[in-house]
């Protein structure tokens, strides 16, 4: 063996890249959840605190699809997304729609109620015990990049997140329903005058956001293995932080915010402060609210008189 110079430095770089990869995987999950927060906020100005629980439900539907219905990963992903889309629309129609003209605090408190209802409803139905996603279901092999091995799970998360985000951009910018969504989020009455059905457009927004959360739930299960009925709380809160970080209501903001938050967390862990991991997300929230309340991508809109 001949000596490799700066061996220590190489190891450091490898570790850094490894942590970045972990952070990006985790961040992709945050980003997928954050998109739903931000889209719903953009259109009805509601922080849907039940969104993290849709993510949890998605993880369970994916789990049962794989273990009980014996589906492969991608069919399970699609089943979970479809079921969550439907679930999101039901939540909107039953809990939020009757409050459309109520005060915002009433809707917000309702969202917290819905969140608790889903969490403990799930425990009531299936018990509080965790489940583990089966091993070896990812058809991708790990690859080596700059001496860093990237696991099949990480590749899957990245692939799913990238495809879904491209798809989302396409829907929002190129399709009729996407244009209707943007119109409604900007001015509901003007959208009505175009003949846009505002209720259906809002439902579509919940459906798309919830489908993304469902997908996030499944890839989370594949990546971290363990799922349980209260698993949506912390990722939900962090995705909310990610959405605020990027600028709530702004779709690219949620993507960047999610990735950034994931990377920050991974680096904090790598630096040896892994106990501070969860805390850091909220430090980020506080800092953003103090210095850039509209978020990284947000414009400071001054109220016009």
């Amino acid at each position, binding site marked *: 063996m001949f000596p490799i110079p700066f061996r220590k430095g190489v190891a450091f770089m490898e570790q850094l890249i490894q942590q970045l990869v972990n952070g990006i995987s985790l961040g992709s999950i945050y980003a997928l959840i954050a998109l739903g927060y931000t889209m719903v906020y953009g259109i009805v100005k509601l922080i849907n605190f039940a969104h993290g629980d849709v993510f949890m439900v998605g993880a369970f539907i994916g789990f049962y699809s794989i273990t009980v219905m014996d589906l492969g990963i991608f069919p399970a992903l699609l089943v979970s997304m479809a079921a969550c889309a439907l679930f999101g629309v039901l939540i909107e129609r039953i809990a939020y729609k009757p409050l459309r003209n109520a005060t915002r605090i009433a809707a917000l408190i309702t969202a917290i109620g819905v969140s608790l209802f889903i969490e403990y409803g799930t425990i009531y139905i299936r018990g509080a015990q965790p489940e583990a996603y089966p091993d070896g279901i990812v058809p991708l092999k790990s690859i080596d990049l700059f001496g860093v091995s990237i696991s099949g799970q990480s590749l899957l998360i990245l692939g799913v997140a990238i495809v879904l985000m491209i798809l989302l951009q396409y829907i929002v910018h190129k399709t*009729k329903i996407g*244009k*209707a969504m*943007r*119109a409604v989020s*900007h*001015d509901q*009455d*003007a*959208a*009505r*005058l*175009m*003949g*846009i*059905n505002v209720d259906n457009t809002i439902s579509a927004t919940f459906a798309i956001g919830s489908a993304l959360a469902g997908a996030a739930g499944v890839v989370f299960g594949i990546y971290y293995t363990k799922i349980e009925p209260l698993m949506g709380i912390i990722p939900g809160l962090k995705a909310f932080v990610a959405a605020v970080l990027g600028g709530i209501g702004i779709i690219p903001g949620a993507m960047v915010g999610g990735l950034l938050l994931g990377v920050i967390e991974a680096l904090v862990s790598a630096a040896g402060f892994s106990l501070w991991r969860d805390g850091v997300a909220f430090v980020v929230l506080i800092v953003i609210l103090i210095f850039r309340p509209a978020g990284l991508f947000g414009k400071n809109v001054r109220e016009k008189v």
Partner: protein
Amino acid sequence: MLKVNDINVYYGNIHALKGVTLEIHPGEIVTLIGANGAGKSTLLKTISGLLKPKSGEILLEDEHVAGKVPQLIVKRGISHVPEGRRVFANMSVEENLELGAYLRKDKNGIREDFEKVYQLFPRLQERRKQLSGTLSGGEQQMLAMGRALMARPRLLLLDEPSMGLAPLLVKTIFRIIEEINQTGTTILLVEQNANMALSIANRAYVIETGKIVAAGTAAELGESDQIRKAYLGGH
């Protein structure tokens, strides 16, 4: 074409329209003039379905449309250009126009109407990729009108198209309103700028605190001393 029959509209406890009746014949330009808060915009919003009347009827060629959703009203051929333009500032000029044709499925017809709108407002064609929030007030008014025309309406409701525009631009806008009318679109024009409105209208109604207080041909109302004093800065 459109008959509004004794409608009453409330905002909570406020009685905003008190038994308003008016009629618009095909091919006309009818103007509704009145002071701020008289109920002009309320009437337009009620016709286009944004507000529901408590009582009374609205007939569009014998079909009852009072209290129907805006979607249906647009489909039946009434387009409303709201006060303050209300363009979708976060979208391009082209996308705004596309949204105007939201309920239509006839691709060729939509393409033709794009051409027509661009002919009517060459400025919009120049700026079709630009975000509409970056347009000037006059251009936004043009966009709002073009957007409404994309639904191929038979009746166009215009709410204060001259608001906040320079006098020269107001003239242009009014000339275009006449052009639109000449292609067969009936127009109900709400204006505070009564002089301009009467100069292009066939008939006019005057509304005061929710009631129609005068009606007649534009020429008649333009001559009336009372109207001149109240609305035309008259002598």
